[in-house]
Structures are given as structure tokens and as C-alpha cells.
């Protein structure tokens, strides 16, 4: 419990909410620059074709149209391809295929929605009018959108330099051991499944304003980014727009990201570049239709799995074969998602001695696929928790008992899994027990009988998920193919007369960083929440950073803030020692007060801060004036949040409608700074996981390659009335290797919930073959076999 109202562990209300709730947030739509012009992208309407020509004549004659720029113009200015920041090597040692990804298409179009040209107008209408008049001359080619079909013999080839559309064929684990164990096993459970493709659907669509100042050659890019420094790095080093010191990236309040705003896309690249071409600030805001077509999508796997068990139900081996859809081009982190963020999680919470996974990454005529809340880990948890559930049903063992039997025991940590990771700590059984208790698992049979009496089918489903987050140890990431480091930076400036500014390289997209981080610092320095201001989202103000994704903001960014705060305390302690005429070792610091041990002398932190800036009585021979520190924190390991989710549903056999009656989540996020914020993250994550399980699906038409679910008329997002009340609780095994003991909570809800819900539905209908999303139609069909 918190010892202060705003201390660590306290339910502090979110500082940022006032401005969000009264409409005073500052999002991209609130930002407009003097003399700004508007960009509208001309996008390919066909999924696959040879781009023979482009006629911009009529567009250029449109009133108010300033310019029409194409891929050739981009290339002529020497801009490079949009890179993939992670390199994967295939089983045979070959480097993955990285076809060119031009900001505007050159020579070929490869998915519906691919940007081909940009029309810049004095007004948005002028640009739109102009864009409608740009004529693309495209020779259509047959498309392939399905991940399995794209690998088949004779499938249309998407990139000339990628034979068979295969980007890489990666493997991890001991194949021989797995083969042997499966061949000899008492029982083998087999499962074939798809992980459905999702559109990220942040509430605020992507947007950008590029600016160029010809006087000092400085570019400024406003973009709703999850990682402004990464935008700067990629645009400088890879795209070669401008050197880093000539490029400032500003990310204001960001209305949701879920991964989709990590990536460096064509549109912001073009806005920044075009600003120089036209000599005016260039603004682009995605329409919702564009968001569906051109945001990087998530998931889209086709997998088979086999789980070998002995007579007692001990897991012996797991074999997984996955085909992962990359879309038409490799997005910024695409290659890492179905490999190091997926294959490494297939041991789950279990002591399965042998796991082997192979992943074939595949190009298709669809929007690029990249990290989406959970990124790889939901796919792993879904596959594993589905096959474990199925195995329990096949061998007739209670699914909770089968899991319990196979859990890594709490005294086995640190635990080396057969798929590369070392879990630092955990107590999986504690979460399982607590969840079973809270969900009244024991009383399920009676509740099922009651439902049956009403003609309804009741089911219960578990998932014991684990994930690896807190991305990431830089050296390990480098060994695994990352092109960047993954530390985090923080800077703390204590003012002379009051207040502290904390600069962090992470970026809130709504998670409440301004509160959580302020709580950390205020708690340590003995200040009020209001005396601590968090600054993020500007490469000219924040010294460095790698941004927010992979639930890293607290465990990595917060740890950097913690380190900087400790440096502040240590310097202040020395100043206080000098002023109290003692040594630093003899000065205690609690609740904002420095006290000289064994005396009645004390000084408040604020007095010390004042002295640092008005150093009249100050150890100038030992210390520089000022109270300002920075820190870089590079984690030793990933963090491993884990927990048990239990879902109970009732299915209406007449309609296939699934009613979620109860949802219990017991999560271990290590130490929790603000339970209200953490619960909010779990709520949101679970809602997204339920969305994936029951509602959401990006569907491309096989023949035309058109996105069928390109609006909310057909793409179903979870709404409040689709969701039950959530029953949440936490267990706590503090992370052993970061100073906060924190593990990260942003993605867990979306990882654990999906399999729990599908397991509940399959339990209710007594039928394993249900595709996601389990819409009423899908459930109805599954209950009837084929129609």
C-alpha cells in the first residue's frame, strides 16, 4: 500500500484526463501551421499491377492544386526505401528478402491503397478534386492475398527479387528432440488454426505535417508517433531525408496507437519531403477509409501445431509450423513479430522440454502487417492455449488440472525455456488458483446445468498466458537482428524555486504516462504530483528515446526515470550534507526531507534545490551547481508478465450468439505503481482481445484483392455492450532485474483474453473447429457442421 496519497501503489486519478475530457487535448487535428497546404494521396485501386504511367495533367489544372508528385520525384531527390529495422535469417542461414519499399509506388502496385502519388492543394477540397483527376495507367496482374495461397506453386509473384513470395523460413528449437518425442508419445493433439487479420483502428487516424525552413535547412515533422526519435532516426539514416540534427520530430497528444503508430510510413515521409518541394508546410490526415487500407494490420497467421503428452498428461514436445502474412512490403518491425516475439513464447508457462517452431514469412497483395497490441505474443498464446485446452478435452483431464501439472514451478526460476528466453520470475500457480477461485470454477457444472435447462449452452475457458515485454536488452536484440538499440532515456531538471520537469523518451498514446511517471518521481522526491511535469514527444526537447511499444514504458522508461531520480537524490544528498555540516553517508532522505543522522538538523528537498541554483553556501570544489541529471537504462532481460484469464459464456443454439457472462483476469505485472491505470490497461486489452475473438476481421477478396471490410459497416469493433464486467485481480512477483520490479501491463489483456474466450465457446458448443472471429454466423455454422 502507498504510504502517501500519491505514492507508489496509490490510485491517483490521471493528470492528463482533464484536458482530454474537456476537449483541450492537442492532437494532430488541433495543429495547423501558417501557410499550410494539404496532401491527398492517390492510391492504387487495384491489388496488383504494372504501373505503366500516370497522367497528372488534369489534376494540375484544377483550381488550387499546387503540385502532383510521384515515386519518380521521390527517387530523383535521392530518398531511400522505407526500411525494415529487423533482419531475420532463415534456417539455412540466408538473410531475409527485403524488397524495395518506395514511399510512392514505382513500376508496380502491390496492394489496394498503396500510395502512388500525392496531390498538394491550397485546400483539402482542391487536393481531393485534383487527386480524383490523376489517371493511373495500370496493367492488372492477378493478386494473391491469402498467406497459404501465396506460397503455393504458381501463385502470382509479388516482387521480382522474392521467388515464391517467401521472405524467410525461420526456425527455433530442437527439431530432432521434438520429432522423437512426438513419434514416441502416448498421445498427440493436433490443431490447425488461423489467427485473424486485424485493423488497428486507433481513434485518432494517422496524420502528419511536414515543414521545411530554407534558412537553416531544418525539417520539422509533426506526426502522431509512438516513437518520435525512431521516426527521426529512420528518416535521417535510412530514408536520408536530412541528417538527424536537421530534423525535428514532434509528436503531440496521440489518440491511440496499439502499434500502428510505431512505424515509419510513406505518408509522413512524403509530407516532410514535399514541404521542401513546395516551400509550404504540408498536412495530411488519414480518412477512416485510408486507415483501413493503409495502416499496418496485425496478426494474420495460418498455423499447425502438435502437442505430445505422456500417459499422465505431461507435455513432452510441441511442434509449430506457421505461415505469417507480411503484406506487400516489410513494415518497420514486421520481420521480428512472427519470429522473436512469437516463436520464443511458445513454451508458455509450461515446462515442456522440447519445442520447435518454423515460420515462413510471406508476401501477399495486402497492406503491410506489423506489430499490433501484443505483436506475436497473442498469436503464440492463442495457439498454445488452444492446443492445451484441446489436449485436455481429448485425454479427458480437467483443463485447469492439465495446466497445473505442466506449469513451471515457482522455485524453478530463473528458468531457461527451450525457445531462447530465460524467465526471471513468476508464480503461475498462484494466479491460476486465484482465478479459479474468483471465477468459481468449481461451481461451473451446476451453472451449466442451469443453462441447459433453459436450452442454452454454457462454456468455460481458461488461458494461462505469458508474454515477454519491456523491449528490450539492446545487445540481445542486436544479436537477434534488431537495427536499433532498445534502451530508454530520461532527464530530470529540478528548478530553483519549484517544480520538476521529467523528460522521457517514451510516448503516451493515452496510457497515462504523465500520471504514472509523476507518481514515481513525486514519491521519491517527496513532492506533490502537481510539482512534477512529464515531457515527451519532441526530439528537440527530449534528449533521446526509443518510444512506446512492447509494454516497455514503465519497465524500461520508468527505470530510466528512476535512475535519473536517484542521481538527483545523491547529488542533493551531498549538497545537504555540506549545508548541514556532515557527510553524505550520514544524511538520510525520506519523504522529501534530508536529515543529518543523530542530529535534529533537516532540510527539505526544495531548499536543497534552491541552493543548487543559488550556491552561496555550496561545495563548489566538489560539485557543479545545478540539479539536473539524465540516465540511460538498458534492461538485462525482457520482463515476463503472466497470468490466468477465465471466461464463461452462454451460447444461444438458435442464433449462435455468444453472451460473455463473466471474465476473470488475474495478472502478475510485478510491482504496480497505479492500480487504476493498470486496470484500465487490462480493460482495454481484454476488450481488444475479445474484439479479435468475436468481432474483428480484415477480409480481402481472394479474386480482386479488394479489402471487403473497409469501413465500420462491415468491420466490427467491440463496443461497451459487447463486453461483460471484468473481474480483475493481481498477483505480484516483482521483476528481478529492473529497479522498479515492474513488468508491463499494456498488452497482456489482448494476449490472455482471446484464447480464454475461444476456449469458452468451444467448451460450450462441444466443437473445436471454430474460426476467429467467432461471429454468430461462425458459431451457428460450427454447431451445425457444414450448412
Amino acid at each position, binding site marked *: 500500500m502507498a504510504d502517501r496519497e500519491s505514492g507508489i501503489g496509490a490510485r491517483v486519478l490521471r493528470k492528463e484526463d482533464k484536458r482530454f475530457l474537456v476537449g483541450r487535448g492537442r492532437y494532430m487535428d488541433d495543429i495547423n501551421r501558417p501557410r499550410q497546404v494539404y496532401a491527398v494521396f492517390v492510391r492504387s485501386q487495384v491489388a496488383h499491377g504494372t504501373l505503366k504511367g500516370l497522367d497528372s495533367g488534369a489534376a494540375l489544372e484544377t483550381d488550387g492544386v499546387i503540385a502532383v508528385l510521384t515515386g519518380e520525384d521521390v527517387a530523383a531527390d535521392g530518398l531511400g526505401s522505407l526500411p525494415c529495422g529487423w533482419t531475420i535469417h532463415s534456417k539455412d542461414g540466408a538473410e531475409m528478402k527485403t524488397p524495395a519499399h518506395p514511399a510512392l509506388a514505382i513500376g508496380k502496385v502491390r496492394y489496394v491503397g498503396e500510395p502512388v502519388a500525392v496531390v498538394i492543394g491550397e485546400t483539402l477540397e482542391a487536393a481531393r478534386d485534383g487527386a480524383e483527376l490523376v489517371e493511373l495507367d495500370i496493367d492488372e496482374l492477378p493478386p494473391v492475398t491469402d498467406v497459404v495461397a501465396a506460397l503455393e506453386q504458381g501463385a502470382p509473384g509479388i516482387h521480382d527479387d522474392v521467388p515464391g513470395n517467401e521472405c524467410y523460413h525461420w526456425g527455433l528449437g530442437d527439431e530432432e528432440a521434438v520429432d522423437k518425442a512426438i513419434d514416441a508419445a502416448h498421445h498427440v493433439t493436433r490443431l490447425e488454426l488461423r489467427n485473424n487479420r486485424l485493423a488497428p483502428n486507433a481513434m485518432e487516424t494517422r496524420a502528419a505535417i511536414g515543414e521545411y525552413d530554407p534558412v537553416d535547412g531544418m525539417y520539422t515533422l509533426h506526426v502522431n508517433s509512438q516513437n518520435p526519435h525512431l521516426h527521426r532516426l529512420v528518416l535521417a539514416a535510412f530514408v536520408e531525408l536530412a541528417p538527424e540534427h536537421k530534423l525535428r520530430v514532434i509528436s503531440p497528444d496521440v489518440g491511440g496507437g496499439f502499434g500502428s503508430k510505431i512505424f515509419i510510413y510513406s505518408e509522413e515521409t512524403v509530407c516532410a519531403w514535399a514541404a521542401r518541394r513546395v*516551400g509550404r508546410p504540408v498536412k495530411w490526415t488519414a480518412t477512416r477509409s485510408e486507415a483501413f487500407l493503409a495502416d499496418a494490420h496485425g496478426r494474420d497467421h495460418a498455423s499447425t501445431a502438435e502437442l505430445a503428452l505422456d500417459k499422465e498428461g505431461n507435455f513432452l514436445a510441441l511442434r509449430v509450423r506457421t505461415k505469417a502474412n507480411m503484406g506487400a512490403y516489410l513494415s518497420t518491425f514486421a520481420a521480428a513479430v512472427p519470429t522473436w516475439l512469437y516463436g520464443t513464447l511458445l513454451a508458455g508457462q509450461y515446462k515442456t522440454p522440447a519445442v520447435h517452431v518454423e515460420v515462413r514469412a510471406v508476401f501477399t497483395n495486402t497492406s503491410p502487417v506489423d506489430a499490433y497490441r501484443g505483436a506475436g505474443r497473442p498469436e503464440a498464446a492463442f495457439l498454445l492455449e488452444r492446443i492445451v485446452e484441446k489436449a485436455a478435452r481429448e485425454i479427458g483431464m480437467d483443463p485447469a488440472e492439465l495446466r497445473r501439472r505442466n506449469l513451471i514451478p515457482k522455485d524453478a526460476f530463473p528458468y531457461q525455456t527451450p525457445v531462447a528466453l530465460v524467465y526471471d520470475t513468476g508464480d503461475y500457480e498462484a494466479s491460476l488458483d486465484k482465478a479459479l477461485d474468483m471465477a468459481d470454477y468449481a461451481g461451473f457444472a451446476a451453472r451449466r446445468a442451469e443453462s441447459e435447462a433453459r436450452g442454452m449452452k454454457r462454456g468455460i475457458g481458461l488461458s494461462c498466458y505469458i508474454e515477454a515485454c519491456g523491449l528490450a536488452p539492446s545487445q540481445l536484440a542486436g544479436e537477434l537482428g534488431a537495427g536499433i538499440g532498445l534502451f530508454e532515456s530520461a532527464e530530470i531538471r529540478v528548478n530553483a524555486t519549484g517544480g520538476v520537469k521529467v523528460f522521457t523518451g517514451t510516448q503516451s498514446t493515452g496510457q497515462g504516462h504523465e500520471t504514472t511517471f509523476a507518481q514515481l518521481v513525486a514519491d521519491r522526491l517527496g513532492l506533490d504530483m502537481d510539482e512534477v511535469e512529464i515531457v515527451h514527444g519532441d526530439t528537440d526537447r527530449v534528449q533521446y528515446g526509443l518510444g512506446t511499444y512492447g509494454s516497455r514504458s514503465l519497465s524500461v522508461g520508468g527505470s530510466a526515470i528512476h535512475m535519473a531520480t536517484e542521481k538527483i537524490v545523491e547529488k542533493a544528498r551531498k549538497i545537504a550534507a555540506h549545508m548541514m555540516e556532515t557527510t553524505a553517508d550520514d544524511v538520510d532522505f525520506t519523504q522529501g526531507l534530508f536529515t543529518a543522522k543523530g542530529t535534529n538538523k533537516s532540510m527539505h528537498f526544495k531548499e536543497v534545490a534552491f541552493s543548487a541554483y543559488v550556491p552561496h553556501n555550496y561545495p563548489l570544489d566538489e560539485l557543479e551547481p545545478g540539479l539536473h541529471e539524465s540516465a540511460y537504462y538498458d534492461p538485462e532481460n525482457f520482463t515476463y508478465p503472466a497470468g490466468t484469464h477465465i471466461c464463461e459464456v452462454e451460447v444461444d443454439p438458435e442464433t449462435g450468439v455468444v453472451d460473455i457472462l463473466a471474465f476473470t483476469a488475474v495478472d502478475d505485472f510485478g510491482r504496480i505503481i497505479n492500480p487504476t491505470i493498470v486496470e484500465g490497461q487490462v480493460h482495454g486489452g481484454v476488450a481488444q482481445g475479445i474484439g479479435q475473438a468475436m468481432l474483428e476481421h480484415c477480409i480481402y477478396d481472394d479474386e480482386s484483392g479488394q479489402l*471487403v*471490410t473497409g469501413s465500420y459497416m462491415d468491420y466490427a469493433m467491440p463496443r461497451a455492450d459487447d463486453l461483460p464486467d471484468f473481474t480483475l485481480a493481481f498477483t505480484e512477483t516483482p521483476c528481478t532485474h529492473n529497479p522498479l520490479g515492474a513488468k508491463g501491463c499494456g498488452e497482456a489483456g489482448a494476449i490472455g483474453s482471446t484464447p480464454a474466450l475461444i476456449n469458452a465457446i468451444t467448451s460450450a458448443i462441444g466443437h473445436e473447429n471454430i474460426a476467429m472471429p467467432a461471429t454468430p*454466423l461462425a458459431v451457428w455454422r460450427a454447431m451445425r457442421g457444414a450448412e
Partner: protein
Amino acid sequence: MDIPARLPDPRKREKKMYRFEYHKATSLEDAASKRSTADDATYLAGGMTLIPTLKQRLASHSDLIDLAGIDGLAGISVDGAVVTIGAMTCHAEVAASAALRDAIPALADLAGLIADPAVRNRGTIGGSLANSDPAADYPAAVLGLGATIVTDKREIAADDYFLDLFETALEEGEIITAIKFPVPKRAAYEKFPNPASRYAIVGVFVAETEGGVRVAVTGAGPCAFRVSDMEAALAGNFAPDAVAGITVSADDLNQDLHASAAYRASLVTTMAKRAVAKAAG
């Protein structure tokens, strides 16, 4: 560098539609004459269907003629056995009307199931019926109650009104002014919403009226239709069991990614059964 003199005003909301002329009609005659003299005009009611299509540039019109300024087109009146709802009455008003809730609660319930509060406060019954979306809710009630569509030219019986996909008996330029609903003995509506759009995948309106039992289905076919087998069965026995075994043929039903024709056919039976139970209960 060439710096244009004219600066866009960033505070101005960005317009996205094609250009059109906006007129506010003062009377039915004024509306009709404005429409007939314009190039390619259309009426504007709540705008909940029309404006999104304009914004997405899926449609363009030279002129929009707003019906909102015409007196007497909005409001609900109950006169003994007939409820009259003005064409410009919004869904929220229909849902909240105490007089209607007394007379035909099923109709008020139906209006409350349309879309969301924002749409219900703009969208109108006249707009919904003029548009005749195959998945709209009102058509089920209009056909299920055997209502009469009143226009500026004539009265059209519900049975003659819905012709095909987005096709009604309205002539070019004809304006719906009101809908007259006979008060039934009992009635109920059951809607199976599309998980994404929340329009009706299938909606069944069942009513026992002076003229007999009527069962009308929306969402399932190209436009609302009646199920005579169910009507006959219910005439003998107004109970869920009476329709439980009656299915409509899937042959002519709609198919999309949310519902196959067979699934829709099955939902027609299920929703009919539930509507009867509700009406009887």
C-alpha cells in the same frame, strides 16, 4: 520561392463534399418546385444516410432541398385507432413518445433500436422509408402493421410500397409527408443486429391487427416482405410454436460476410418465434 498571397484559414473546418447548393424549402410546393427546376436535386431530411454518402463522395447532387423548414411534417398524433407520424419526426422522438408507447409500444421499441442516440436524434422516419435500405428497421413495422404512406400526391398502402432493393413506389420528386399506422391488438418486433453496423441482419415484426395477423421481415431480402405461411399459422394459434416449424426459402435471401442466406432464413424463424412470444406475453 514563389509564395502565394492567399492563405487558407486553418480554423475553418475542412469541407470534403462536392459542391452543392443548399435550399431550405418553405412548403411542400416550394420543395417540389425547387427540385424540379434544379439539375440534379434531392431532398434532405435528417441527413444520416445522405450526408455520409456525400462526404465519401459516393454521391453528388447539384442541389439539396432541406425539408426541415416545412411546417406540419413532424410530430406524432394518436387518433383512436390510428397513429400518424410526420415524415420529419426523428427516431428519438418516436422512441420516447408516451402516446405512441400506449398505442403501439412495439413501434416505439423499434425506433429505440435504430442506430445510436446521435443518429436517432437526426434520422427521420420519412428519410428511412424513402431510402428503403434492405436492412432498415422501419419497413418491418410499416409492412407488419399495414400502415399507409402519405405523400404530397397520394396515399400508398404498405403492401404496394416496397418494390425492391432501395426501390419504392415513390415517384420522382414525390415527398413523404406522414405515415398512418393502424393500432394493432398486439405486436412486437425482434431485431437481430449486424455485429458491425447494427442495422438489421433480420428483423421480424409480428402484429395481430383488425385485418388479421401480419408478419413482416426486414434485413433478409432485397426489401421488406411478408411471410404468409406464418400469418396463416398464427391466425389459428397466436403462439411461438405455431411458427417454429415454418421456414422461408433461402433462395432469394441476402448473402454477405455477416450472414449467409441459410443463416438468415433460420433467423427469420427464430426472430418470428421470439416476436410472437413477446407480443403474446
